[in-house]
């Protein structure tokens, strides 16, 4: 490291492209947020600043009920998905290869591989016949669908955490006459907790974002925030959409920052 005049890893032009890419990624997002403060949609920021669109969105009953519905679904789905993913991760990690392992992996990761529109259509077909057969039209379908596609997102950080865990701690607990359940509750679970919380947060964000599957599964009058926004976009664009987007954006960034610190501190 004595001579730094020649840096082998520096390739000409790469830094310029990289910085341009970061600019390109963030400028549209900043413009979106800035336009949520615009007086009129067409003239953008030139006419002055206002918080009216936030107030309008806040008072809009359709937005209120869509927000509530989004939160109920995302919360239920992330709890169910995290529970299932934790169990599956405990069963499938830290052990020698077993029969059917690949099948379980493929099943769990399937929502990451199958295009969303394909799952959405298949669920429409399946749930439509259940809806006719049972007459039940409630939120259960959306919660089931969201829970299912959130499982791989919850599974990955939990599995990563488990794989990095020191097995000797559990052995030590067992040597000290802790029952398997006691070992799990007092040793495994506390160490696993950051992974579980991280998994739940990712599942929450993923559920909150979904448009396509929700559009196909929902019954009448079951708009979530993203499908409500989608509906607004089909009509005329107003800065109200920008205002809702900005709030969702801030929420996502806050959750991700928490996730960032949660997974980093315990490396």
């Amino acid at each position: 490291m004595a001579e730094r005049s020649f840096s082998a890893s520096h390739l000409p032009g790469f830094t310029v492209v990289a910085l341009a890419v970061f600019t390109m990624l963030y400028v549209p997002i900043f413009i979106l947020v800035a336009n949520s403060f615009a007086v009129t949609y067409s003239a953008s920021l030139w006419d002055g600043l206002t918080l009216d669109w936030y107030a309008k969105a806040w008072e809009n009953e359709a937005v209120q009920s869509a927000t509530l519905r989004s939160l109920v679904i995302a919360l239920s789905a992330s709890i169910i998905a995290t529970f299932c993913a934790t169990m599956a991760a405990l069963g499938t990690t830290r052990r020698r290869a077993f029969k059917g392992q690949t099948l379980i992996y493929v099943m769990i990761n399937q929502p990451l591989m199958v295009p969303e529109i394909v799952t959405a259509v298949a669920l429409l077909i399946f749930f439509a016949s259940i809806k006719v057969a049972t007459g039940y039209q409630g939120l259960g379908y959306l919660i089931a669908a969201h829970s299912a596609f959130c499982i791989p997102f919850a599974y990955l950080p939990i599995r990563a955490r488990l794989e990095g865990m020191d097995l000797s701690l559990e052995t030590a607990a067992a040597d000290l006459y802790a029952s398997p359940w006691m070992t799990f509750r007092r040793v495994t679970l506390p160490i696993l907790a950051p992974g579980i919380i991280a998994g739940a947060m990712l599942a929450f964000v993923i559920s909150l974002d979904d448009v396509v599957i929700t559009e196909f599964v929902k019954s009448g009058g079951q708009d979530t925030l993203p499908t409500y926004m989608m509906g607004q976009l089909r009509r005329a664009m107003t800065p109200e959409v920008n205002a809702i987007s900005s709030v969702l954006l801030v929420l996502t960034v806050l959750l991700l920052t928490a996730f960032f610190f949660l997974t980093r501190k315990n490396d």
Partner: protein
Amino acid sequence: MTMSPAEIERDKASTRNAWALSTPALILLTFAACGPLFIMLVYSFLTKGQYGNVIGTFSLDGWRSILTSEDIFDPGVTVWADAHLSIFWRSVKLSVLTTILTLAIGFPTAWFIATRPPKSRPLWLFLITIPFWTNLLIRTVAIFEVIRNEGVINTLLIWASVISAPLQITYTDTAVFIGMVYVYLPLMVLPLFASIDRFDMRLIEAAHDLYASRMAVLRRVILPIVRPGVIAGSILVFVPSLGAVVTPRILGGGKNMMIGNFIELQFGQGRNWPLGAALSMTLLVIVTVALLFYVRVSSRENAHG
């Protein structure tokens, strides 16, 4: 390796345990993700109902009408369905172009992140991760804000007197292309970063010492090692591009459909569920082939490395 009977018994018990613990996840996924795919396969072989849904009689019309249709003026005569073909062509073309451009600009970006000092590297990585986890709809709206007729690009160009009337970018293939590159770029950068991060930079110095040119270093030293990342990133971008729905819907409008929108249409105004189901199965097969290709290539790379 031979196992004692007790060991075999313990192994069996632990396999049962693995399955038991995975059961809730597997049930949920079968009910609300994989299982319905089989029902859809069945639907693709049924007759379309007049107001959507299907009638329970066997028919190959769903599959047949993917590529062909009946001549409007001459019923009974089968012709190529040009409208369908142009949608498939657009989907493949835009997905390939998106993959190429994201690779071209994503590689330098991933390289830049991987060569930052260890202290600031997580921060740069985090800056890529934020858009990755941000709502796709919001990011599509964001890019719409930039390219729409009253958007920043047009306003700036008119202000600078480069153009006198706004450029119509939205509702064209170009708009969908720009949008998909913007939306899927993080999917390219993250796996590229993962492979470059493992790369030993001293190899480049060694190559330089042996009088390799920059181009030779890139081709002969860097690319072979980061190839798994390039393949992973390309698949991760190509697969969702091909199945994209939201981005082409908002930026392409009704005219510039991709396969995803075409499938969606069959379950809406099109009222042709068997065709929609057959199209979905086709998309699923293409995606599965792409993923299997990836698994094969990456396992071969691992065997060599």
